């Protein structure tokens, strides 16, 4: 009761952006999807482009993203969002078009669409939620699942001889002349949320320049799929995901960043991890 006294406009330090609807999100508590949604919505709000933004979200835990973003939105078939977004943008060049895809979607079933949209330099923003697992279908191996990492279809851990290497598609895309901005971020601490939001802002602003594709990977936890508490999941992500998927910009304004050496791009000895 007493708290109500402080609810006054002058005390207001934060409000939910109007670009997010009031629908209750279906994501598991602790999941990175919700935070990623919020910062994208805030960027759309701050840029004043709600009436010009068209989102595309394919199959995966974020398939219902259209219930949360208050912008025109298309659900896409598994893996096909980059093709869908290509046509939206080409036919509506004044709109801001973004895809929001998981790792299974973007880097397994939709690899061709991803690579070719990037290679054509489509003037869109792609947000890539890398949680190293198929969250929606119950925690099976994703192309990004780490070596040694247990999942529903790698119950004894991912084996390179059996399953190949974790695919670092973000680094791969950075080598294509069609990408203008490529970065890897996370949303597991307030500081990282701020950095990730700045990256999303840049990726949307870039659409005004028409210079190619902007790609923001968000290395994100799937505590349900990883079978951990949210806190454990964040810690595990720092210790195991980040060495394999180093955070930071990879390509800015069409140029590889100075610290992105050939060795860093290739990282040919993926670290082996252990989880329960």
């Amino acid at each position, binding site marked *: 009761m007493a708290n109500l006294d402080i609810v006054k406009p002058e005390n207001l330090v934060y409000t939910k952006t109007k670009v997010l609807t009031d629908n209750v999100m279906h994501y598991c508590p602790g999941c990175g999807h919700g935070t990623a949604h919020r910062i994208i919505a805030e960027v759309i709000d701050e840029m004043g482009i709600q*009436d010009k933004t068209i989102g595309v979200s394919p199959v995966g835990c974020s398939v219902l993203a259209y219930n949360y973003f208050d912008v025109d939105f298309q659900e896409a078939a598994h893996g096909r969002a980059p093709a869908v*977004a290509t046509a939206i943008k080409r036919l509506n060049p004044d709109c801001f078009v973004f895809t929001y895809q998981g790792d299974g979607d973007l880097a397994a079933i939709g690899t061709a669409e991803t690579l070719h949209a990037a290679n054509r330099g489509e003037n869109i923003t792609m947000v890539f939620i890398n949680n190293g697992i198929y969250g929606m279908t119950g925690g099976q191996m994703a192309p990004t699942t780490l070596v040694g990492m247990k999942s529903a279809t790698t119950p004894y851990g991912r084996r390179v001889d059996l399953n190949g290497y974790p695919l670092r598609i973000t680094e791969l895309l950075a080598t294509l002349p069609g990408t203008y901005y490529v970065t890897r971020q996370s949303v597991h601490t307030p500081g990282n949320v701020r950095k990730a939001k700045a990256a999303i802002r840049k990726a949307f602003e870039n659409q005004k320049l028409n210079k190619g594709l902007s790609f923001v990977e968000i290395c994100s936890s799937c505590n349900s799929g990883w079978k951990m508490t949210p806190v454990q999941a964040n810690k595990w992500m720092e210790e195991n995901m980040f060495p394999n998927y180093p955070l930071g910009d990879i390509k800015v304004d069409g140029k590889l960043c100075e610290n992105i050496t050939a060795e860093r791009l290739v990282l040919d000895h993926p670290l082996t991890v252990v989880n329960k």
Partner: protein
Amino acid sequence: MAKELKLMKGNEAIARAMIASGTDGYFGYPITPQSEVMETLMAEKPWETTGMVVLQAESELASINMVYGGAATGKKVATSSSSPGISLMQEGLTYLAGAEIPCVIMNAMRGGPGLGTIQPAQSDYFQSVKGGGHGDYQLYTIAPSSVQEMYDFVFDAWDIAFKYRNPVLILTDGAIGQCMEKCYTRDYIPRWTEEERRQHAPWGTWGKPATRSHNIITSLELESSRQEVFNQKLQAKYREMEEKEVRFEALNCEDADYIFVAYGTSARICMKSMELARAKGLKVGLLRLITLYPFPKKQIAELAKKVKGMLCVEMSAGQMIEDVKLAANCSIPIEHYGRFGGIIPSPEEVLEAMEKEIIK
């Protein structure tokens, strides 16, 4: 281009009709025997005249999903392919039907199964009208049998697609795609203005103004009771098409004792077979199917009461015949005659089949 009489290939007619009918975008992937569609568009450069976007995609998976993305914004977006490519598009087609997105797809059928042959065939009938993808859905399926119809049906396809918010399949074959015939072109219909787009597609994802809630394009409904209601709505739409949009041509059927039932290239051959039969004094007619879905059930049922037998001619092992038999309730002799693997039957062998199998 204004009204003109020109000699052109069927595939070229599709491309020129797309430009002339105010199509906003075409996305395709090369495959014989229909690559001339995209080749003509690329040579015509409509982006410099009408503003139409043309893009070669990395696969048919991509091109059909580009159709999905572009068409869902309420624009007129089309693609074309041939059998193996259309197989690859089936997932996209069921999503398009499920999200009720108007669009136009052309299939210039070639022989299968598998990579098959690049020669013409009509063996994708089941795939086209029985739902090649998953779920209960229908494509409005229209079968041209001349270059002129290839041209004209593109215009008709847009009307149907937007009237019913449904994908339209122009189902033809390599013979009609490749053959050259005269064709009357039409005056250009300008592409829709921004305002017209919003009028024709109030459901489209063209950017949410403050005055309306956000538009969502999806085929997902996790609540089964709502998914059932949605399916009922789709079925009601299909019933309305069956009621109002059936097209066919009945040639010499009034006094006929026997009729051919055929569409596309087979119908063209049957016209000749019918002439040969009439010259012999045989009262033979032809029911040329134009829409394959909706299927002219009533017309076939009526004819079955009047004639003594029907020969279904199709460049397949016998697919359309199943619907003909169902429509006629198997009340009279109905047989199939077909060649396949890319072989086109001659009018003489078709007539011979009629005499042997039906007239006896």
